Each structure stands twice: as structure tokens, then as C-alpha cells.
């Protein structure tokens, strides 16, 4: 009997763990990226510096980044989540900035001239106008984060990576590797379909 039919409960638990890591990381990443990008959009010079910084972070191999974080955060899921958040920043920031840049100046001027406050413009005009591009960023980072989160198993965060690393450690257990790989793929695929659906849902005729 194939592995995933023998231990559905284990697989279910690992998948949930994995989803938890991914969704927590993505939520935190968005909560940081949205206001940060909004701020950087108004300060173009600072924007280049910050994007440069995250660009460098992005080139650090994921295992190395997590190891760097362990002395500060401990050998646990915290390090993993922080690493995932850092990775997704580049993609998210770039997309949110692109989305905000794509809004014509005159649209913002009209909103200003009508008497919308800065907050109302951000919430009622800029966010919905940039939303399709933002969601595209979420879709791409979701796939990246699902993949990198597998490494979390090495750092005590559990998740589907457990199957992969067990499979490597135990001779002849390629079935575990296959199961892990396929489910990781399915999770990534479903999340990106969900984001794609939302992208369509929140797009508007241009």
C-alpha cells in the first residue's frame, strides 16, 4: 500500500503544519509590505535603498538565512517564519510598488482635489487599484514560500519537509520523498489558483 494511504493522519497533520507556516509567514509579510511599500512609494530615494537591501537578502540561500537567524530566535519555527517573511518581502514589495506606480498621477490628484484624506486615498483608491498586481505578488511569493518552508523541518518547524528529510535519511524510503514532493506541489498549486481567482475577482476594466 502506498505511504500516503497508510498514514493519512500523519500526512494530514504535516500538511496542516505546512499550511500554517506558509499562511502565518505570508500574512506577516503582507502586513509589513503593504504599509512599507505605501511609504516607499512616497519616498523614491529611500525606496531604492530598501529594495537593494531586500534584493541582497533574497540571494542568501534559504538554509544559510535560517542558520543566521537561529542565534537570535532559537532553533524553532520562529526562525523559519522570519526567514520566509524576509524572502517574500522582495516579491511583495516589488509588486505593491509596481501597482502603486501604475496609478495615474491625475487619479490621485482628482482624489486629493475632491477632499479625500491621505488615509481615504490609500484605502479607497490606491489599495483597490493596485490590488490585482498585489495579488499577483502574493501568488508568486506563495509558491516560493511553500517550497522554502520544507526546509523548516530541519529547524523544528515540522511541515511537509519532514517527509522529504526522513525519506533521504532512511534508505529505500523514496515513497516518503515522492509523497512529500507531490503534496508540496499540490499545496503550492492550490494556493496559487486561489490567488489567481482573487486576482480575477478584484480586477476591473481598464
Amino acid at each position: 500500500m502506498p505511504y500516503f494511504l497508510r498514514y493519512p493522519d500523519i500526512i494530514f497533520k504535516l500538511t496542516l503544519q505546512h499550511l500554517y507556516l506558509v499562511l502565518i509567514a505570508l500574512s506577516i509579510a503582507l502586513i509589513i509590505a503593504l504599509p512599507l511599500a505605501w511609504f516607499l512609494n512616497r519616498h523614491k530615494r529611500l525606496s531604492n535603498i530598501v529594495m537593494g537591501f531586500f534584493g541582497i537578502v533574497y540571494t542568501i540561500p534559504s538554509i544559510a538565512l535560517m542558520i543566521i537567524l537561529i542565534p537570535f530566535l532559537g532553533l524553532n519555527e520562529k526562525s523559519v517564519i522570519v526567514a520566509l517573511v524576509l524572502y517574500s518581502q522582495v516579491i511583495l514589495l516589488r509588486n505593491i510598488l509596481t501597482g502603486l506606480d501604475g496609478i495615474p498621477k491625475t487619479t490621485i490628484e482628482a482624489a486629493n482635489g475632491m477632499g479625500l484624506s491621505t488615509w481615504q486615498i490609500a484605502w479607497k483608491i490606491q489599495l483597490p487599484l493596485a490590488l490585482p498586481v498585489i495579488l499577483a505578488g502574493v501568488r508568486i511569493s506563495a509558491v516560493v514560500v511553500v517550497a522554502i518552508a520544507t526546509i523548516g523541518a530541519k529547524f523544528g518547524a515540522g511541515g511537509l519537509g519532514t517527509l522529504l528529510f526522513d525519506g533521504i535519511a532512511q534508505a529505500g524510503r523514496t515513497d516518503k520523498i515522492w509523497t512529500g514532493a507531490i503534496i508540496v506541489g499540490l499545496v503550492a498549486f492550490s494556493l496559487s489558483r486561489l490567488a489567481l481567482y482573487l486576482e480575477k475577482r478584484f480586477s476591473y476594466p481598464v
Partner: protein
Amino acid sequence: MQGIVFDKVSKQYKNAAAPAVNQVSFTVDPGSLVVLLGPSGCGKTTLLKMVNRLFEPSEGTIYLDGVNIRDMEVTALRRQIGYVIQQVGLFPHMTVAENIALIPSLLKWEKPRIQSRVDELLTLIHLDPLEYRDRYPAQLSGGQQQRVGLARALAGDPNVLLMDEPFGAIDAITRASLQQEVMQLQNQLQKTVLFVTHDVEEALLLADKIAILKEGALVQYDTPWNLLTNPADEFVRELINADDRIRQLTVLKAKDVMIKPSHHEQVLKKVQQRTDLRQVLSLLLSSPNAVVAVTDSSGKVVGEISLQQLVLE
């Protein structure tokens, strides 16, 4: 003091050699339409944007209905001023109705009142509410978009309208019909309007008074009639092509030249206050006594014109 008062208003941009607006003073009477006219770069937009405080003057003061606009909260000030720009700036993620409803909802109007306001305005600008309410801006023609832009500016029922080359990007035929509509609307609503254009015909057609700007300074501020008959200098004379009499007659209106009525109105042919003088002349030439009566929108006779009024002294 009602209306908009500019008191020695100047605007110096950083790093600019000369001020964009230089010591400009004039008054826009309540309910009148004033056109800011002048060549590109003369400071029209800058002057306009100081009224809703998108720019702040470097010197001088602007009063709205007697209140220094600097003493007003900026979003509150802007919500009582309708703002229309050439690029329209409709919000593409909102339907026509949502665009128009935005300011009323920020002003916390009740739902039913907002809905009926949206339909009322769409009807006013000649777009069928049933057909257009739920469309997105991208699903409208340029002229229709600008109509909606105008409706959106009127939505909160502001007393003041600022319009910056609203028809500058629209084809000639649509522009002409939009100009007619602005005149009708203005007859009906009597807003205090500041209207920027560098199209002289448009200025002469729409304006109660025209402010002519040159390199940031106000050169002349007067009615179309007085500008044409009494240009302050060569610059104004050339700008408005003051020497072409026939052209003047097509843009000047009955109310510009009418005198107090003295004839028995029954026997006279009647024209509206905003009928252009070319039509008036045509009527005069075909009336036996060479006098026409001018009526207001309710049909009451308010003046009369004979050939004499069309002749320059």
C-alpha cells in the same frame, strides 16, 4: 464678501526664476462663470489649484465667501469645491454611480438620498441612469467620461466649481455639445465657476468675465464684450482676435449688449439672454422695427436690442 476673492496672490515655485503667478487680484462674483485665459505656462493651473489648496500661495490671500481659505480645514474646503480636470481622473475600479456617490457618502448622506442624487445628476448630464449607472469608466467614451467627471464634481452640491481645461482632450463636435451643456447647467444651477482654457472661442462663449493672464500677471479682467471692444493692450487684442467683428458676434451674447426694455414687448421677436449676437443680428435684419426683446429663463422680458447696440461707438 461673497464669491472668490484673490488678494495680491503670488506663487513662486522653488528653483524657478520668475513667479508662476504674480500679484494677482480679482473677484469672482457668486453665481458667475469666470474664465482664466492665456497662453501655455502663464499660470492658469497654478492659480486654480491655489483655490482648493493643492498649492499654497507664497504671498497674498484667497477668500471664499469672506473666509480666508487658509483658516479652513483643507479636506472640508475641498469637499465644498467641485473639481474637474482635463484627464478626468475617474476611479477605474468604481462604477459610474460609485464615482458620483463618493463625496456624498463621505459627507455622510443617507443611502436613499445618495441614490436619488446619482440618478438626478446622470439625468442632468444626459446619461440614462438605467444604462450608465453600473458601467465602469473604461466602458465610456471620452466625452461621456468627462460628463461623469462633471456629475461627480457636482455631487456634493458645491457652490464653487473649478474646471481645468475640462474639454481640452475632447474632439471638436463633442466639445461643442459639452460647452452647450455647461451653459445650460450654469443657467440652471448658478454655481461660482472658475474655468481654465486656452481656447479663445470657448472663453468668449462661456464666460461672464474673463481674466487674461500673461507670464503670471493679470493683464485684464473684464466681460467678453469689454475685452473685444476695449482690449487693454496689443497682447489682449491679438489673443482674443478683437478686430474680427463677425466672429465676435458669434460668441457674444444678447445679455452682453442689451439695454433696458422700452418698447411694447408683445410686438417684438424674443431671444434668450444667452442667444448669440449673430442670431440676434439675423433677427434684427428681418424684423420690421429692428428691435428684439431679451427674456430670462422664465420668459420675462429683461432687455432689448436694436441695431444700434451692435455698432461700436
